[in-house]
């Protein structure tokens, strides 16, 4: 477990240092703030998908869930003029319900996770577009909107979800970082210190074995999907307030791939039973760092995807090789 985190940390530091050397402005407070902020947003989402991957499942729908939650939230606050906290509560409830449906279809109806969540990807995206008639909208109402009377409350929320807290003279801590911290620590404790976390690892490795040990594997799997969708929902709220703009057809598109890539790069095995929250969070940061570096160094944006792909591939390959080398050394010792 430790070895995985080592590899990805080295990668993080290496890209960091190289970028800082090429363009020292990379290190300025404003850029660091942004880097932290984006890493947190994607990190929250990636932690969710890590839960599912640890059980040996997959969730392709999170990008669409992020989109739908952002759309519905903005729809409630801006068009319906609903009480903002109620709106937050309802959207979170919706994301929990989505996770529950996934879990039930997977465990009770025995449909494969890939299929269930692929259909989810299509359906939720469509729902969001249909609900808003495909209009862009933001969660913070503008003058004349229905929700305008709740403006103070909404601006409070805006601060909670996308504000900045001044630390010292020049550095402002973006609030999403706090979300990430709390969620990551809670997730880490859940996975490593509670019986339910242990059950998730056990069933990801050997589902029958876990069931034979008296574990309610179905309930645990459903829990994992609920956590995943709920974190995607929280990420959706964070994104909505961060961007102030939600596009039903676009917001969240492809995010499932980023999240899965982060989970894998961070040491989760898609076969299940493996992975740590720390690794996933670092990996999510690495991906954001790569984007930032490409812009900082001034490489053509056409190449962004390609560089990201190469780094993930080489990262996973390198990890594989480190593992092999370690095994070989252990062998020759014994």
């Amino acid at each position: 477990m430790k070895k995985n985190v080592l590899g990805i940390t080295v990668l993080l530091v290496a890209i960091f240092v190289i970028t800082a050397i090429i363009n020292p402005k990379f290190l300025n407070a404003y850029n660091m703030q942004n880097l932290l902020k984006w890493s947190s947003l994607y990190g929250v989402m990636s932690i969710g998908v890590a839960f599912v991957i640890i059980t040996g499942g997959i969730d392709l729908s999170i990008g669409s869930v992020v989109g739908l939650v952002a759309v519905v939230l903005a729809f409630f606050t801006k068009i319906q003029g609903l009480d903002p906290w109620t709106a937050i509560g309802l959207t979170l409830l919706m994301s929990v319900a989505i996770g529950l449906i996934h879990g039930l279809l997977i465990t009770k109806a025995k449909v494969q996770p890939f299929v269930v969540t692929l259909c989810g990807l299509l359906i939720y995206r469509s729902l969001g577009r249909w609900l808003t008639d495909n209009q862009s909208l933001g969660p913070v109402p503008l003058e004349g909107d229905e929700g305008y009377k709740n403006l103070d409350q909404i601006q409070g929320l805006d601060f909670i979800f996308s504000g900045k807290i001044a630390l010292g003279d020049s550095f402002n801590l973006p609030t999403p970082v706090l979300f990430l911290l709390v969620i990551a620590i809670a997730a880490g404790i859940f996975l490593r210190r509670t019986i339910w976390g242990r059950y998730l690892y056990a069933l990801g490795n050997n589902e029958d074995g876990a069931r034979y040990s008296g574990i309610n594997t179905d309930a645990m799997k459903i829990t994992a999907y609920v956590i995943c969708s709920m974190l995607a929902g929280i990420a959706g709220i964070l994104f909505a307030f961060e961007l102030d703009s939600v596009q039903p057809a676009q917001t969240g598109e492809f995010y499932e791939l980023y999240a899965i890539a982060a989970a894998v790069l961070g040491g989760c095995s898609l076969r299940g039973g493996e992975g740590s929250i720390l690794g996933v969070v670092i990996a999510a940061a690495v991906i954001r760092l790569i984007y930032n570096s490409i812009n900082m160094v001034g490489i053509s944006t056409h190449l962004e995807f390609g560089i990201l792909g190469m780094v993930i591939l080489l990262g996973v390959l390198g990890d594989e090789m480190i593992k092999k080398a370690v095994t070989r050394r252990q062998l020759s010792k014994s």
Partner: protein
Amino acid sequence: MPTSESFLLEAKGLTKSFPGVLALKGVSLSLGKGEVLALIGENGAGKSTLMKILAGVQPSDSGEYFIDGKLVSLQNVRDALSYGVALIHQELNLASNLDLAANIFLGREINNRGFINEDALRSEAQKHLKRVGLDLPTDTITGNLPIGKQQLVEIAKALSCNARVLIMDEPTSSLSQKETETLFEVVKGLRTDGISVIYISHRLGEVKELADRVTVFRDGENAGDLAKEDINHDSMVRLMVGRDLSEFYDRKSHDPGDIVLNVKGIISPTYPAAAVSMKVRAGEVVGVAGLVGAGRTELLQTIFGVTPALGGSMQISGVAFCPQNPKAAIEAGIALAPEDRKLHGLILPMSVRDNASLPSLGRDQNKGMLNFGKEEEIANKAVEQMKIKTPNLEQFARFLSGGNQQKIVLGKWLAMNPKLLILDEPTRGIDVGAKREIYRLMEKIAGEGMAILFVSSEMEEVLGMADRTYVMHEGQISGELTRDQMSEESIMQLATGGPLAA
């Protein structure tokens, strides 16, 4: 009918069906307090199925189940545990990614509102590991242990439930002699403590040693019970197969022919420090004995090209040979019936026909096109020659019993007509009837001039079948014994690394 209060556990008229199979046709079974009940029967008789029902793993279709004289209806494993019934599965069911302590208490962690109390867990786990003779750190990752040790962990896990009824489904199939003895001590200790045990095994010797009573199943039905005084090899066999079995090991000596396999100092990855040399002649049956983890499977896999050798050389009929994969070994005339037939021997979701013809497809080249007629022929021949019990050739291998599955494996290799047939634990988990057929077959094909190399952890089998035996210890060949030199003592001596007594 009132239930006798004296029975701790009683099952009456249980039935259970699976797609295409009626596994239990109304069987009954009863267990007294502090009793060791042995349950025996041929492969597929329904032993494991019944045990899974008793332990709440799966429901029965009909029938009654009493615990302490009360009718119960178990929904899941937890329910069974709450009644004090724990099951050690026939197959390993550990989470290989977790450590020993986690596995032993999986599902029953010592916790405070969900938070695991690691320290308490570890010290408790340590106790249970000691009980089964495992002195390992509790944070050892389970998957890193050899199978035999993992089996002991399973037993420790079941013991930790503090069950009133402990069901052991073939617990010794992958244990060494020494580990088996430890287990016997444990079982006897349990009996003294008033804990009841249901013990399933195909090793009738063990049954004789342990059981207070024997219940026999045949084809999903009760075939009879034996009281302690009536338990002996022949009576058990008679109830199991419905008739007497003549001479078990029917070996004739043959004049060995030319050297088929000549291994000179090969090194396998698991024991890089040990070089192994051996010879097998045509028409010869050569055994490889040793304790579990001695490196026997590794050796066979190296010869078969699964894990290519790191050094040394081999010859097949005098031609140098160094397989990098099983394909190369098969092309050189070697066949391997692996230890784990479900994982390595068969493609379970494919039909008997597809399995039987699979290795032959590449040989009977027809520009790559399948020859369905030929396939049919090969499969039919295997079914006839091996007496495989299957409704038809389309049946999935998954639905056949262990013995019949092993026969498909042998059948598919005999169709290739190899020079050397390698068998790894050929009768593990296989009932007496099928065992005898496999022994007969070994005798027959050796008589026809095929070289046979087999690994076995069953002393009797080695003594009964081998013309010559290599004994392994920690990856080395610690000795070679001719048929005259072979005895239980001489083999054990070499297997434990000691010198051969003069």
